């Protein structure tokens, strides 16, 4: 066994309140940010595919702005600069969690919009044509025909985004959000031991991502259109591995 590994400390850390709450905060932040990003990203994607030049330019500027600047900088900006620029953000309601939610949603929406755009483009043009020939409006075609088909394409890369985002929540450490890394740091500072606290937080990330991968595999089956729910052509789910260094 390793010279100085304290199994007891490791188990204590794993089951301690700060870790639980930290993991829960990280998970909550990831889920709400991703959900918000999907909604914003959907509209940005529609703008990017619009016939109007103005909409396309707006989408372009949005994606450019949020992808070209570091996430950490955006987080800092939202937490420190925004309240000074705009009074509403100086209120008590603007907690570290709210700030992180805002920053990560806006940031993630830029990436999601590209994923959603790819999904929408992957739907054969004949599908829209058939909908128009039936007399359906663009909205109806989008809702009933195009979006359900795009979802299948969008799921695997969105799994990646979930993981990236989960890891990005550790950045919110810098705006004093109590997430997993904070728990590990505090424990390490108190015990002068690093392996156990850090390994304990690592376990939480692994568990969350494993659960996500199972959910993703189920979703992919759900959006495969055969009556027998066969899995032809699609193979196993895309491994949700992310090496994104945002």
């Amino acid at each position: 066994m390793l010279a100085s590994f304290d199994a007891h400390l490791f188990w204590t850390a794993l089951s301690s309140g700060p870790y639980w709450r930290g993991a829960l905060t990280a998970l909550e932040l990831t889920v709400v940010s991703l959900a918000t990003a999907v909604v914003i990203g959907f509209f940005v994607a529609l703008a990017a595919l619009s016939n109007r030049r103005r909409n396309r330019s707006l989408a372009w500027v949005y994606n450019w702005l949020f992808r070209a600047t570091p996430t950490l900088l955006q987080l800092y900006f939202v937490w420190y600069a925004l309240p000074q620029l705009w009074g509403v953000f100086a209120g008590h309601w603007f907690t570290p969690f709210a700030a992180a939610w805002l920053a990560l949603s806006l940031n993630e929406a830029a990436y999601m919009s590209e994923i959603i755009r790819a999904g929408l483009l992957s739907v054969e043009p004949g599908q829209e044509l058939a909908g128009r020939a039936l007399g359906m409006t663009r909205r109806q075609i989008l809702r009933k025909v195009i979006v359900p088909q795009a979802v299948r394409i969008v799921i695997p890369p969105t799994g990646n985004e979930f993981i990236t985002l989960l890891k990005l929540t550790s950045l919110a450490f810098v705006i004093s959000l109590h997430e997993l890394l904070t728990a590990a740091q505090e424990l390490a500072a108190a015990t002068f031991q690093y392996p156990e606290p850090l390994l304990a937080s690592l376990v939480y990330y692994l568990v969350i991502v494993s659960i996500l991968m199972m959910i993703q595999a189920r979703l992919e089956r759900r959006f495969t259109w055969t009556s027998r729910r066969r899995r032809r052509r699609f193979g196993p789910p895309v491994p949700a591995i992310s090496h994104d260094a945002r």
Partner: protein
Amino acid sequence: MADVVLRADGVQKHYGELEVLKGVTFEVDRGQVKVIIGPSGSGKSTLLRCLAMLEAPDAGDVYLETERLTALSEKQLAPHRSEVGMVFQRFNLFQNMTALANVMCGLLEVRRLSKREARERALEFLARVGVADKASQYPDELSGGQQQRVAIARALVMRPKAMLFDEPTSALDVELVREVLDVMELLAREGMTMVVVTHELRFAQHVASAVLMMDEGRIVEEARPDEFFSAPKEERTRRFLALVE
């Protein structure tokens, strides 16, 4: 006075520099079956899409009965499109819906029928084209011929005033062509107004009220099928028929 269902009047269409339709005038009366033949790139499909108002002509007008469709905005057009059924070469069934849901879709979304009523009607039409047993299958699981028959049912269930077919058998394996042509022939006998772009000359001979030859964005010749095939007037038609037969 002839009872015109669909009429194109001097329709022009171009994509960039390419002139696809150079002022086409065309009409189809109630109960008529008009077959359009011609080489690829002659503008047949574009004419059909203009008649279905899936493409707006650059000049000229399209009428559905007495309504001038070219005068309507995109929003006003949507409900009118459901009055004209369109069948595509590649079927274009909604991939995320079963055969039944495909046929129900227009009834639910456009006609606003109740689910129960839509289901009943859809099943009835699936039976008419002989694929009632495939109702719960997804397009992916059907043969091309079955998919095309579902597509015909999907258009037909809207009770259109006319049906347009854009090379409905071109994407099918040879042994599946017959089942689709049979359905179309049945429709013609029941008095459906039809415009069919096809290379199936025997279908044209047997079923058409008139055959039209298109070339380079114009209608070159229009005649009753017996005249058209036995004594084509135009040199262009003769050359094309010699190639196809």
